């Protein structure tokens, strides 16, 4: 029963009348409930007692429902005014104008159409055929069951302890052999980092000699006063940079796959090779 129910007010008044009594019966030890008014300890028992009492009263009254009847025709003095003419037609018109009812009619029509969109008839024995197929499928599964049960017993032999190490060694050896057997047509394999390093080191030695003898006197760096000028001057960082750039460009032109990240250690190698060759060259007098 909702609070808007006509009889709700009656219950509200009953409830209101009970609150003072409940508060008076409250046990002090219970204290106020944080979620509502305090509830007496025997609330459930008292409520149950009232419910049972009410139930008994209802049963008693129900048994006496026919104990009194109004005299025949007495209640008919309370007549209902005659219905205005055309009520039925007005109601039917209202139904026809009612969007919600019209929608229901459309839904019904749609349902009929949907039902019509389907197989005209189901072939005879469909159910039996389906059941037979299911039965056959089950029998097939049953036949396979012993084999399926036996499969877990087919165990694998134990793996040797050094299997992983042996496999790894085999893989590495195989890779090294591939690099060794690389053919000229296999550019990518040939330009593995080892091959590239060797080729670049050779190229650096040749190019560094070219760079060193290509220096003009004016291009030589200024000598430091007081220094041992009998010793051949080492190429400056700029010279080495120019030389390596030249070499890098040449290599890039030859092979596009040369990557930047592989150049860094190679530059270092080229610098070291050029420096060593410069130190071993004969002293040049200015």
């Amino acid at each position, binding site marked *: 029963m*909702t609070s*808007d*129910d*006509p*009889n709700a*007010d*009656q219950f509200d*008044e009953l409830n209101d009348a009970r609150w003072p009594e409940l508060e008076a019966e409250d046990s002090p030890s219970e204290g106020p409930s944080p979620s509502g008014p305090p509830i007496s300890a025997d609330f459930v028992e008292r409520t149950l007692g009232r419910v049972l009492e009410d139930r008994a*009263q*209802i*049963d008693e*009254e*129900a*048994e*006496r*429902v026919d*104990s*009194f009847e*109004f*005299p025949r025709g*007495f*209640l008919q*003095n*309370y*007549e*209902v*005014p005659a*219905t*205005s003419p055309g*009520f*039925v037609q*007005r*109601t*039917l018109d*209202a*139904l026809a104008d*009612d969007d*919600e*009812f019209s929608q*229901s*009619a459309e*839904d*019904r*029509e749609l349902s009929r159409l949907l039902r019509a969109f389907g197989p005209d008839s189901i072939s005879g024995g469909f159910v039996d055929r389906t059941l037979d197929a299911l039965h056959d499928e089950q029998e097939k599964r049953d036949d396979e069951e012993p084999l399926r049960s036996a499969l877990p017993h087919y165990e694998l032999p134990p793996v040797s302890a050094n299997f992983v190490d042996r496999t790894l060694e085999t893989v590495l050896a195989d890779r090294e052999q591939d690099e060794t057997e690389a053919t000229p047509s296999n550019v990518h394999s040939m330009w593995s980092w080892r091959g590239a390093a060797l080729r670049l080191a050779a190229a650096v030695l040749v190019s560094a000699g070219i760079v060193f003898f290509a220096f003009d006197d004016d291009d030589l760096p200024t000598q430091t006063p007081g220094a041992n000028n009998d010793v051949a001057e080492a190429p400056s960082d700029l010279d080495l940079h120019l030389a390596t750039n030249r070499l890098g460009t040449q290599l890039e032109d030859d092979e596009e796959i040369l990557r930047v990240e592989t150049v860094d250690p190679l530059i270092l190698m080229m610098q070291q090779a050029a420096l060593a060759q410069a130190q071993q060259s004969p002293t040049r007098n200015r």
Partner: protein
Amino acid sequence: MIEITNDLVRQAQAGDQDAARQIIERLHRPIIGTVYRFLGSRFASEAEDIAQDVFLKVFRAIDRFDHDRGVKFTTWVYTFVRNHCFDILKKRRLPTVSMSPIDEDGPRIETEDESMAQPREELENSELGQKIEEALSGLGADQRLAFVLREYEGLDYGSIAQVMGVSEGTVKSRLHRAKEALRTRLSPYLRAGA
């Protein structure tokens, strides 16, 4: 209680307008009567509109009526009457206090209308009808509806229980209380008419 056959309901569910017309023709008087007697003569000018609204709701939902649930179509329609009338009472906040001396559902009010004591023969039937209405309006809504459905529309206890959503025992109890209240209230006319 007027019965509506399942075939007629199925035809109406299929969208047959003739079936809808037959249902309205057969049920409109009891429905208007129930609305009028439950809400009282103050709704006399609206009773037909209210009944029409009930029919609209019934036919909007008629597809949902399940023949297999063992509920009579007429009983199902009366649930719409009940719900719609209770909605009206809620919206208008009409008081529904009981003046039954044995009614424990709420406070009692005493009517100081001296004409209530006049013998029945001194009153025209319409005036007696007015006294019956006044006595009915003093009942609680549940008792009043149970009484109207039982005494005026002839529904059995089980159907009333289905309409009101309570047990048969509760229906009988409410009817007993309603009768006792009305008998007390109308006793001068009952004695005169007996």
